[in-house]
């Protein structure tokens, strides 16, 4: 017993991973899962299109979470969006400015730019002066992003990743610059500001789903269906727990504490 801590957590993790793996297996067999399209995805295309028409650059930033912290999934999901946006921008031949807080993403972003320019067969699109490290101090980063938004007037700005208070600085500065903005974050405390200011916001889990959608890969889409199993599990646990607790029983709570 004492060998394993958080047994209920481990069991839940196994169930969720099992569900995701099962859905991936199904997809490999050719059985596609129907998955709702998140509206924000279309808005991303629209914003890039608008930039192209106006001949103005696109801006993207991926927030504060380092790759080795528990916020890493948000940064990885944000980078998937970046990869997609880079390819589109290279195809359309408009510059993409990436502002960076997490320095270990610099080599990754460089590689994504290179890949985008190769796919679009326009080597001249690759310009690594558009990949701008703005320091790993929050408000230095914020001033840098503000400067880019104010002076280079991007017509589209994507804020995808984990943010803190500077989220609103970016969103308002982007608004002042006249950019169409799409944001995505799992940081609950900042979602309200994105919802209030940006043209579209990927709420929490939708950010993770976005990466899989944009990959257009059936296997990745299947994993989204898999993660829904965990949500059904949560709903069942909540419902049963509510009823039991209202009847005065702590049975479920005690099990979940194991």
């Amino acid at each position, binding site marked *: 017993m004492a060998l394993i801590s958080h047994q209920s*957590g481990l069991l839940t993790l196994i169930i969720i991973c099992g569900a995701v793996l099962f859905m991936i297996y199904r997809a490999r067999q050719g059985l596609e899962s129907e998955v709702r399209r998140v509206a924000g995805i279309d808005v991303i295309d629209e914003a890039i299109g608008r930039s192209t028409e106006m001949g103005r650059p696109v801006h993207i930033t991926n927030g504060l979470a380092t790759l080795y912290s528990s916020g890493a999934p948000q940064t990885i999901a944000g980078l998937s969006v970046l990869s997609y946006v880079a390819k589109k921008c290279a195809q359309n031949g408009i510059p993409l400015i990436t502002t960076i807080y997490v320095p270990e993403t610099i080599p990754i972003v460089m590689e994504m730019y290179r890949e985008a320019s190769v796919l679009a067969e326009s080597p001249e699109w690759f310009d690594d002066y558009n990949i701008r490290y703005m320091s*790993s101090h929050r*408000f230095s980063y914020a001033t840098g992003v*503000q400067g880019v938004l104010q002076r280079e007037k991007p017509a589209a700005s994507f804020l995808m990743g984990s943010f803190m208070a500077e989220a609103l600085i970016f969103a308002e500065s982007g608004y002042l610059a006249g950019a169409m903005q799409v944001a995505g974050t799992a940081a609950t405390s900042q979602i*309200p500001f994105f919802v209030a200011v940006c043209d579209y916001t990927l709420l929490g889990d939708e950010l993770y789903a976005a990466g899989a959608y944009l990959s257009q890969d059936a296997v990745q889409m299947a994993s989204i269906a898999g993660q829904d199993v965990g949500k059904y599990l949560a*709903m069942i646990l909540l419902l049963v727990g509510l009823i039991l*607790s209202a009847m005065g029983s702590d049975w479920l709570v005690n099990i979940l504490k194991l």
Partner: protein
Amino acid sequence: MADIIVEIGIWVAAAYTLMIYSYPYKDTPLFKFAEHTMIGLGIAITTIMGIRNILDIAVGSIVNKGEIAWIVPILLGLALFTRYSRQYAWLSRWPLALLVGVGIGVSMGSSVDASFLAQIRSTVTGVNTLNKALLGIMIIITITYFIFSIGKEQREKGAFKYTSQLGRYVMMLCFGALFGNTIMTRMALFIGRMNFLLFEWLKLG
């Protein structure tokens, strides 16, 4: 002498404060100057910290304690620089793989237990008031908004259509509340800055 240095410091601080506040007015060189100062200092401070970490922790442990294993992160760290070469760029994937492995592992390990189950536990403990029951029901309703794998018909006609719309309403109440609640904290910070400008700098008090 010391007083003069402090006084100059207060004037410099006040000047920078006004430069930053010039941002919404229009594109001024003042903000640009403050911005470049801030980026320069921000990078300097974190770089110093980074170099100290490398020297004190890694190199220090090898030299002073003979802990040879620290050579591994140093080599991996150096491998990041191969991104600037065409021939050896593949090497830069290894350190990134290590960092991502740690990040993914840490988040997968703890999140199910510390976020998922903890939230459920605290919701279903001691449900003895109407509000607590309502809280639980609202959570269930809101989760339905996040269900992605639902067939088209159900999404357009079935119960999920209504619950996910209700879920959005609950979220809007929440976002409004968080927004409104943050205003006081932001005002408090601004009041702090105004106290500095009015009383420490202009000495109006």
